[in-house]
């Protein structure tokens, strides 16, 4: 059982713990507003992802949660035929190489 105390007293509004949480949140809202999927489709996809992992362990509301969010988003747009996990991994590796090969201080580009 996870203690809630750690969070409960904290009243400060801090919408996102990490920049990528904000990115994946905003990308999802944006795609839904562009009608690539409805918000109900989205919450169904996210709920399914959360319920899958729930059986095995408690998830936190930060990195765990947004990892599931990201997974749900990738699966949802894959079912729409927009892209798939393999294509994303490919571009991800290219970005990783670009970071490794770009001298410090220079902008990283693909």
């Amino acid at each position: 059982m996870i203690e809630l105390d750690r969070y409960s007293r904290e009243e400060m509004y801090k919408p996102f713990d990490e920049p990528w949480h904000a990115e994946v949140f905003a990308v999802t809202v944006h795609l839904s507003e562009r009608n690539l999927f409805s918000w109900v489709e989205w919450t169904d996809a996210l709920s399914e992802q959360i319920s899958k992992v729930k059986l095995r362990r408690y998830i936190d509301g930060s990195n765990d949660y947004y990892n599931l969010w990201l997974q749900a988003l990738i699966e949802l747009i894959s079912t729409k035929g927009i892209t798939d996990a393999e294509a994303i991994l490919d571009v991800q590796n290219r970005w990783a190489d670009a970071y490794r090969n770009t001298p410090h201080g220079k902008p990283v580009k693909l």
Partner: protein
Amino acid sequence: MPHDHDENHVHNLLPAEPALRVKALETILVEKGLLDQQAVDAIIDEYEQRIGPHIGAKIVARAWNDPAFKSMLLADSEAVLREEGHAGRQGEHVVVVENTNTVHNLVVCTLCSCYPWPLLGVPPAWYKSDAYRSRAVSEPRRVLSEFGIDIPKSQSVRVWDSTAEIRYLVLPMQPRESVGLPTPELAKWVTRNSMIGTGLPQRPKDDQR
């Protein structure tokens, strides 16, 4: 291929794996013409800078000071929020539930994290945790005591499970010692947690009286 740390500081720091995956996803969506990076940045800015619990607090404070507004809010919150310009995304179908001497309301989303964004912004991490989402329903009084509030036996605890279609905002009871304050002052008493039901309004820290 692991990053070669012998060449420390020579290269840019490699972002964490999920951050890179999001970046890759954005790259693909931009290439396909499905994503406008400026629009994404504007959404982030909106939730980081403009929208937050201070908006819900103003509504609650006004309801405390204006009985007619309060009646309208409880009867048809959608119409009131639309009129006030707070019907943005996830703001449709917000139901305002009032705490009384006999009922304390608590809001949760058991399946994911539905939440009245235009009034409270993005939910806090604990709201999205498994611990809160499951325990708020199974043992609400115990969860509330972990949040530091003990609900007397005379008050029943009603748990509202949000969905993509309906979201809830708690109208907390006004603390007696705040009666008579002007609405902008009252708004400072309204904490985020008090509008979720996991807290009570509090005297603002900068209040010297």
